[in-house]
């Protein structure tokens, strides 16, 4: 085999995209041709360099929000439900990043019992989060006053969700709503951080030990799960993970 032929196929050889016979031919040639072997090194080096050094451009949050919103809109139109009443009001939410903290109802959560349960719950709260933004249904009660939001849940849930005012720390409460996770009514509280919104869902998880998971990413949103004082908290957002963690801490400990 001539060097010329080898060099031509070196690129595919590096990618392991030659058939076994072709690959062996190249290998045999490389074993005894230092020039081609050097070229091989160069080609491998190029790949390494690209992977290590070429900039990667992830989608900006604003684009992510617009795209999710578009998908959700298509789906809700299909259901024929006219939810447009508040589109004008909440349309701008699509461009904003959001943090959702979910306070769930009596749903039995398996976080302490298995990774699968955890992952699927993570998917659910993210979906719920995205829906809340995209379906123009972020809040049933819009208020920055915890003494308005907390009583609003009376009679709607079989527990009273803790509602903490974190405005002083830069995370003002802006409202709350009922939500549903796995068919159960849950409470969702909405907070805001700069342009980012936070939806908080929580529910009683009696007997569970206090625990905290580091932020995880699901479909571009960050999810923090906390158990504290017999309550489970799910916090979802595209706010950066550091601030989200800090928020979660303050939320559950009240400081």
């Amino acid at each position, binding site marked *: 085999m001539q060097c010329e032929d080898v060099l031509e196929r070196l690129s595919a050889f590096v990618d392991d995209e030659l058939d076994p016979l072709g690959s062996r031919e190249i290998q045999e040639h490389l074993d005894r041709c230092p020039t081609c072997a050097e070229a091989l090194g160069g080609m491998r080096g190029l790949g390494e360099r690209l*992977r290590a050094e070429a900039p990667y451009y*992830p989608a*900006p949050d604003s684009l992510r929000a617009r795209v*999710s919103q578009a*998908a959700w809109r298509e*789906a809700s139109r299909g259901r024929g439900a006219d939810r447009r009443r508040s589109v004008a009001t909440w349309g701008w939410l699509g461009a904003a990043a959001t943090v959702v903290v979910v306070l769930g109802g009596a749903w039995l959560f398996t976080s302490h019992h298995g990774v699968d349960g955890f992952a699927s719950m993570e998917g659910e709260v993210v979906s719920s989060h995205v829906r809340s933004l995209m379906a123009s249904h972020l809040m049933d009660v819009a208020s920055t006053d915890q003494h308005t939001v907390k009583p609003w849940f009376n009679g709607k849930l079989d527990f009273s969700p803790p509602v903490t005012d974190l405005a002083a720390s830069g995370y003002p409460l802006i409202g709350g709503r009922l939500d549903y996770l796995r068919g159960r009514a849950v409470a969702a509280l909405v907070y805001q951080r700069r342009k980012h919104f936070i939806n908080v869902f929580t529910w009683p998880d009696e007997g569970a030990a206090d625990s905290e998971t580091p932020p995880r990413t699901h479909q571009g949103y960050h999810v923090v799960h906390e158990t504290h004082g017999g309550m489970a908290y799910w916090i979802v957002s595209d706010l950066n993970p550091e601030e989200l963690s800090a928020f979660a801490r303050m939320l559950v400990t009240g400081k």
Partner: protein
Amino acid sequence: MTHEREPEADGPRRYLSPRELDRFNECVLPYLDAAHNLARYLLRDAQDAEDAVQDAFLRAIRHFHGFRGADGRAWLLSIVRNTCFTRLSGRPPSGQNVEFDEEIHTVEERSPGPDVDLERRAAAESVREGLDRLAVEFREVLVLRELEGLSYKEIAQVSGVPIGTVMSRLARGRKQLLLALAPGGPKENG
């Protein structure tokens, strides 16, 4: 490769069922970053890339019911890729010749923090510039291969060309890029 079942944006459309929305969120949405990265490299402009990705997603959403496969990534990327090439063809000719694109992309303003690793930044800059100067067909296959790790078959699917073409574009693209990044500096190449 006939997976390209995405018709015109104003072609037949159907709203997503809740199940389809879930499936869309599961199979397609996760590749938003890949979509954006590809568009950014193909179009070499941040705003254009965002617009193209948004357009592409709208088309993907509206024609998602035509998506049968399991590989949402290749399906999405092919829509993104076609959207980008349509945009490029509408642009004034700017040296999209197959050999070597001499148009040097304007280096973006970036405020270097005090602690940045300047050497690393410079290396990244030269790699990006080398890629940006390649003809778009070569840039495309290199990004799909090296940054997304797609197989030749998948790249062929995305680009709508035979596998042999993928192979030769990669070989030529790499050869040009190696020359461009050689210590001697990026210079003409035949």
